[in-house]
């Protein structure tokens, strides 16, 4: 099954995809996300929208910080001030879940005031949750 990957649109007009071009996963090299952070540092660009996607056509979008949303409701919605992606993994020993590895890919948007919105997607089942923190 295809794993969730990130897609980021940048303030300089680029849209970058984990798993494609310079952002393929390369053994022993910095992860694609770490390379994206380097690219942001080198160019001064910022992330204006962040999504998770699979090669199978699934997509999960965070609210965008872009200026041209398709619907009026999005124009009035508060816009995130920053984005990040991470993967969360848990593992047990002892008990009924021993050996089970839970892995989620998470897209995270932060708003003024420290509030955050996260989308968690299970790497195996594709089940997803939205979390307000």
């Amino acid at each position: 099954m295809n794993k969730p990957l990130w897609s980021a649109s940048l303030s300089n007009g680029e849209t970058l995809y984990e798993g494609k071009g310079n952002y393929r996963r390369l053994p022993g090299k910095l992860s694609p996300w770490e390379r994206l952070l380097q690219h942001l540092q080198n160019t001064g660009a910022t992330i204006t929208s962040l999504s998770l996607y699979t090669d199978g056509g699934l997509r999960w979008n965070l609210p965008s910080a872009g200026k041209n949303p398709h619907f009026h409701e999005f124009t009035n919605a508060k816009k995130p001030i920053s984005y990040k992606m991470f993967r969360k993994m848990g593992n047990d020993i002892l008990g009924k879940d021993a050996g089970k590895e839970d892995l989620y890919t998470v897209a995270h948007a932060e708003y003024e005031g420290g509030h955050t919105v996260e989308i968690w997607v299970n790497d195996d089942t594709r089940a997803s949750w939205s979390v307000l923190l």
Partner: protein
Amino acid sequence: MATFIWTLQGTTPTTIDATDILQFAGTGGFDTPVVVGAFNGTTHVKSSVGVDDSSGNTPRNNKFISQAGGTSGHSQADWGDGTEDLDAILSAECALKINFSDAASVSITNAIFYAYDGATPATAPTGVTFVAAEQGDINFTAAEGSGSALTLTDQSAATSHDFFIVPSVSPDSAGLKDSFSLRIELTYS
């Protein structure tokens, strides 16, 4: 693909496979009980068919002695050389090593370690008192349930990350304690 490997350290490490049991036992060795109110005297890896997988590997044991009885209020433990301040333990002397690896070089943040009842991560294990520390910590953490977890140190980008843990457990009552799981959670990117 990201992977965890849990190891009971010793003269030779013993990998703790998914079907194995990390056994906290008494001073008498494998399959001997820990006295109620006392802490583990030995630690072993028990296979799903009851075999002592760590036999012959001289497995490490980390025993809680006090929470604040050491120098400047440091915790104390015994890892085979008598009572010492917790922060004197070396990574090789920690009973538990958890390795996380990924093909790519990833950084680790927000890693936590705790015991729970095997069903609900927020719930403390049943019938035991569990404490843990990361190598270098000065005090033990009562790491029972995800809300009281031991916080592990962030690690910068690499393809392999080791966490060295000092675990110790005491039964609150007589009997087998199997509502008891250990769990690690971490964030990587």
